[in-house]
């Protein structure tokens, strides 16, 4: 099988990789680039565990061919923290105990970042519908929603 050479940017870093034309972005992130923070829960776009940002837009990396990333910019969970500092969303997930097993957490945090980047002050309903593509089986979503609300507050510069 002839492999394709792809040049892209991931988490601000220029990256090159060889992949098979039919390989998903998720498989390349996890197997080729060993960026395993992005999780696979279904590989059919139904759970959101593989959420990444493509040029700032939220997508499922399992529903994107790796070759399509050529010339684009990807952000994965590994790129959410601000260097040595956790992103406020990550901090709030910890403070609110918004994770139990933690497998869905990277996807939720990437999706929540996309939400708050485009809507700094979402209602509870807006948060719930925006995150409806991210499945969590442990928490019943309650603490996740509260963490996102609190993170939004912090990002708006209001006293949390």
């Amino acid at each position, binding site marked *: 099988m002839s492999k394709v050479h792809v040049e892209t940017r991931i988490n601000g870093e220029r990256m090159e990789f060889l992949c098979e034309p039919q390989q998903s972005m998720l498989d390349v992130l996890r197997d080729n680039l060993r960026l395993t923070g992005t999780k696979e829960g279904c590989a*059919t776009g139904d759970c959101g565990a593989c959420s990444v940002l*493509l040029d700032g837009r939220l997508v499922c990396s399992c*529903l*994107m061919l790796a070759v399509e990333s050529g010339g684009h910019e990807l952000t994965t969970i590994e790129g959410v923290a601000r260097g040595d500092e956790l992103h406020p969303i990550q901090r709030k997930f910890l403070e609110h105990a918004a994770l139990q097993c933690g497998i869905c957490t990277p996807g939720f945090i990437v999706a929540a970042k996309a939400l708050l980047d485009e809507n700094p002050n979402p209602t509870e309903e807006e948060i719930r519908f925006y995150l409806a593509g991210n499945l969590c089986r442990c928490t019943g979503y309650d603490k996740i929603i509260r963490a996102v609300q609190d993170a939004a507050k912090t990002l708006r510069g209001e006293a949390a």
Partner: protein
Amino acid sequence: MQSFAYAAPETVKQALDVLAEHQSAGRRVQVMAGGTDLLVQMRTLDGSPRTIVDIKKLAETNRLDVGASEIYIGAAIPGAELSASKPLAVCLPGLVEAMDLIGSTQIQGRASLGGNLCNASPAGDTIPALVADAGVCVIATPGGQRELPVEQFVVGVGKNALKPGEFLLGIKFKRPAARTGDAYLRFIPRTEMDIAVAGAGVSVTLDAKGVCTAARVAIGAVAPTVILVPGAAKALIGSSLDDKALDAAGAACSAAASPISDKRGTADYRRKVVAVLCKRATKIAAERAKETR
């Protein structure tokens, strides 16, 4: 034996050439826009090698025009972009809602109107709205272009009217007349992330007194293809969309439906619910018609 390949042409001609080459060589080729259906199908149904032609880099498939007389939506534009377009939301809010109902926020980042139409699922959410809004497919052909009304584009379960070597460039609409409104509703057991159990797209035009002068009603997930229901339109036209007219339109939808029972719902349930959706969607479309001038 053929192996997988990926092509991302930058002009319509290049795209047509790739399709033509493969066709003449008898090699498998498949056009991809957002890929949210294609990749799932490759993973779960048929993973056999093919050349994937990505049409996201073409100007014609990315153009969004909301003109004074005509609206054009490029086939590869992702839902997230359509939802962000204010002018489109003013002219065809029902269509935008239908697109927005497809999958999650993540899916909206990739999935396209053209892809949803070409995939030709009986339950495709945009198709009833496209039919109700009298959308016309603009198709790239080796000879140039041809046009086809959406209701004639879908010919069977997963089957569309594209001939080998052709692909969908976009969909165009006449700009809706004054006091015209559209709406699409579907039923799913959850609030998100499901495939429609039944769907109804409605477009109505009212006169100054609120009497319905024109209507198109299309229903989805209740037959092998989305179907236009003239009987439902007939029931609405000439009425002031009172309950009697709405009931008659709903009944026409139930009568026109030929649903199956499967994991997503029973035939009997689909037939009943499609009437409810028709009535509810018509009310929303009527409200919108009153607002537009």
